[in-house]
């Protein structure tokens, strides 16, 4: 499209995946994104992306580039890394490529949300789609997270303000509690807040669970007593939403917190109902997890070297680089965690994704469109609800098509 408006576009700026964005286009550029939050506005930008193909610093044809990527993958143990901003169709094609090459496969998840997923694999989890929270939750407990900065529309769109089937008056039918842990604070607008020191957080979650189970807990410190009082309020609510940020890069690996939250939410389903809502960032990260699970059985950190998927959660992309000769990044490399880009520096790198040619030191770079702006397909909301991503602007090559071309080059053994 060069002129016009697209209604109900899906924004992948964060994991909320708001699908009420009205995008206006003038002269082939995005000039407005009504309803988008600041993160969304930045994510859409003006919709322009480079459309170049580079091999070893020189402009190249698609054929030469895809052959060069195939060579890199064939040269030895390689990592295929799913970065943000690609459709699930692209993710599926990249997983297939990793399977065929016997490569290591990973995604942004391994260095962000992995600890919560691992806890979930040990214990399970009690959760809900965001619409259930919208329609039912009468008590929202924000655990060390204020969505205002990283998920700006969460409160307005899902979690506090909107009316719902069981909360017809919206915000006035709900109570909002902030649990501030160390310097990580909950929403400023919370009607109640309790403060926990980092050192006491795990103990607090333990006594809260005990309180939900009806145990007597004498002699607690005031801090822990406040946590117990909150737990008792939670048991009296009709539907509790316990909300935390599952992927604070570099801080999200607190498995004691995650164990405690998962256990507390499960236990609350005895006396009442509770859903643990784990916030995820943008770029269709949940889609990468979903497609990896259905094709390999594992949500991240997969090794195909033995001819079938093996789970290597102890070796995320940021630490698994030793022994890997090269890496193919599929997606927006500039939106990958810094720990990963640091770990990859000095390796042979190919990038197929939005703004690939802006990645320094990439041996091969193929610019593609951005999922939901140029590339149509499926994108997943943070709660695993799949949404249709539109193509708003004509863009460079579709990432999925480029990956398939690489797969053909790998299969035929074509050389650059």
């Amino acid at each position, binding site marked *: 499209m060069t002129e016009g408006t697209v209604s*109900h576009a899906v924004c992948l700026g964060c994991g909320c995946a708001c*699908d*009420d964005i009205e995008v206006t286009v003038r002269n082939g550029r995005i000039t407005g994104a009504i309803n988008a939050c600041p993160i969304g506005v930045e994510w859409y930008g003006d919709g322009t992306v480079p459309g170049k193909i580079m091999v070893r610093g020189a402009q190249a044809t698609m054929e030469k580039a895809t052959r060069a990527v195939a060579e890199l993958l064939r040269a030895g143990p390689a990592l295929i890394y799913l970065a943000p901003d690609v459709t*699930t169709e692209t993710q*599926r094609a990249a997983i*297939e490529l990793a*399977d065929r090459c016997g490569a290591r496969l990973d995604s942004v998840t391994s260095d962000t949300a992995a600890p919560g997923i691992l806890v*979930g*694999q*040990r*214990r*399970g*989890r*009690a*959760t*809900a*789609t*965001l*619409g*259930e929270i*919208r*329609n*039912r939750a009468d008590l929202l407990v924000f655990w060390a997270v204020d969505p205002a900065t990283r998920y700006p529309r969460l409160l307005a*769109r*899902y979690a506090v303000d909107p*009316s*719902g*089937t*069981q909360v017809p008056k919206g915000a006035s039918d709900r109570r909002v509690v902030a649990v501030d842990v160390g310097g990580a604070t909950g929403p400023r607008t919370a009607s109640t807040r309790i403060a926990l020191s980092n050192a006491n957080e795990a103990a607090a979650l333990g006594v809260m669970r005990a309180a939900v189970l009806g145990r007597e807990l004498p002699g607690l410190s005031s801090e822990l007593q406040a946590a117990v009082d909150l737990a008792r309020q939670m048991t009296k609510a*009709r*539907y509790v939403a316990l909300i935390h940020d599952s992927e604070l890069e570099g801080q999200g690996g607190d498995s004691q917190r995650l164990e405690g939250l998962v256990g507390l939410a*499960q236990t609350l*389903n*005895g006396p*009442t*109902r509770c859903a643990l809502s784990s916030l995820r960032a943008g770029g269709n990260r949940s889609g990468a*997890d*979903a*497609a990896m*699970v*259905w*094709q*390999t*059985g*594992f*949500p991240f950190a997969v090794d*195909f070297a033995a*001819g*079938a*998927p*093996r*789970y290597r*959660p102890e070796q995320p992309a940021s630490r698994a680089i030793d022994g890997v000769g090269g890496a193919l990044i599929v997606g927006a490399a500039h939106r990958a965690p810094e720990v990963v880009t640091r770990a990859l520096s000095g390796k042979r790198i190919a990038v197929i994704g939005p703004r690939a040619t802006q990645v320094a030191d990439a041996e091969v770079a193929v610019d593609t469109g951005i999922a939901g702006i140029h590339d149509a397909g*499926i994108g997943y909301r943070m709660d*695993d*609800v*799949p*949404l*249709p991503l539109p193509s708003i602007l004509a863009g460079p090559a579709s990432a999925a098509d480029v990956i398939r071309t690489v797969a053909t080059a790998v*299969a035929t053994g074509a050389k650059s």
Partner: protein
Amino acid sequence: MPTGGRLRIVGGAVHDPANNIDGEIRDVCIEDGRIVASLPGGAPTLNANGMIVMPGGVDIHAHFASSSCNHARRLLPEEHTADPVPAPKLLDGAGRSGTGGTVPTTFSTAYRYAGLGYTTAFDAAVAPIMARHTHAELDDTPILDAGCFVLLGNDEYLHRQISRGERERAAHYVAWMLAATGAYAVKIVNPGGIEAWKSGQRNLTDIDQALAGTNVTPRAILETLTNAANGLRLPHPVHIHCNNLGQAGNSATTIATMEALTGRRAHFTHLQFHCYGGEAGKGWSSAAKSVIEHVNAHPEHTVDVGQVMFGPATTLTADGPVEYLLYSTSGRKWVNIDVELETGCGIVPYSYKEKAAVATLQWAVGLELFLLARDPWRVVLSTDHPNGGSFLSYPALIQLLMTRGARDEQLQRANPKLLAGSALTDGLDREYTLNEIAIVTRAGPARILGLRQKGHLGVGADADITIYGRDTDIAKMFSSPRFVLKAGQLVVEEGQLRRAPQGRRLHVRPPYDESILRDVRKHFDDYGTVAFDNYAVRDVPGTPAALQS
């Protein structure tokens, strides 16, 4: 692959019960993916001398391609680590690796189904809002012709229509929903009970118990959706998972549900889980006989059994309250996902142990249903994969049905504590014949699903064919067919998977009154989090199936 899409299968003993062929040695001719009456003399042949020829298997009820399945897969890294599945050596080199366990990955699921001689399967529980995910998984599930059933028994918009007395209008909503989700049939799980679980009422235990503050009862939901499915002339009637699954004494609910729908076409699924006598907290017994006698007397009703097999399973259902109960009594890991405005999801990995009294009772109840059923055309073989066990256990189940000795042997190893009154211990001599097996695994389910071109080998049928090498070890014979053809293509040759073509998507698109959409759109605007315009799955592949005439 034979040239010109032609192949003559010669010398096999053909079991094609839909065409009254019971082990007759005869040729089966294939052209362009279909069965034809004859072929020119020089057509390529496949020698099936000494072998058994049947239509491809049809799984009427399994869980293998849904958001819930994927949550189960995610929960089971230990199973997947223990069962890596290398890529099969396909002729085109396009095989994919994966992992197995009770909930295998998509490609492995397809390869394993085909390896058993199954060529058609339905995922039995798809939340409408997750239908897009199911179709993406099915895109990665080759070989099988496949479709899904869409969960509507706890849909809040439907409940609103029922409470307003607008049941006629509800049928149009059902038709729209089937089209929007690319589904094949309507599924009801624990009617009203999931909504009760989500709203704090915990569950509904009687079909006349209303959801709190409403006049919506399981009976009203059942009647509305049954009438809608039949009124829309869907090829498959409403597919019902009754209230009180797994509870002692639940046979009363099951029979009450069947009675509520007397005279109306309906399918009751995984019946084994709904045939218990006794009383909650006071013991269990088998009530299989009373339930199957009711089914025997009602030709308008069909069932699949949902047999429990000893060994690992993963319980995986929209029936959230049941899974909570299993979690709280077993202490195993547990997933619960409340799905907005529509349904729920619960998952608990499980294991049926022969030394456990309740598991043995469940095993026995399933077999009683099979053995006491008078009309095999209305009783389908299923394990409710992966709930009662993996579909990979179908051959072992077939052996139990065909061999009393195998049943007795298993009984001796099992815990008999709750088997008093079970017809199985009274000596059920019946042994299924090969033709009866062909009925309960392909001809019957195809007929119940309204798949006119499947489940038989008459002229015009899809050339989905399974050829077994004869073996006295029944389980071995059914677990590794010599040849499997899908739409005329040899996918399994000499027991090896050689091709994995894309299967067809099975779905329906009944007409509806578009004027209802204004109100549906308002419901989305008022309570949904996905825009109405983004809800429907676009571009479901394939032509919609014909409605009943």
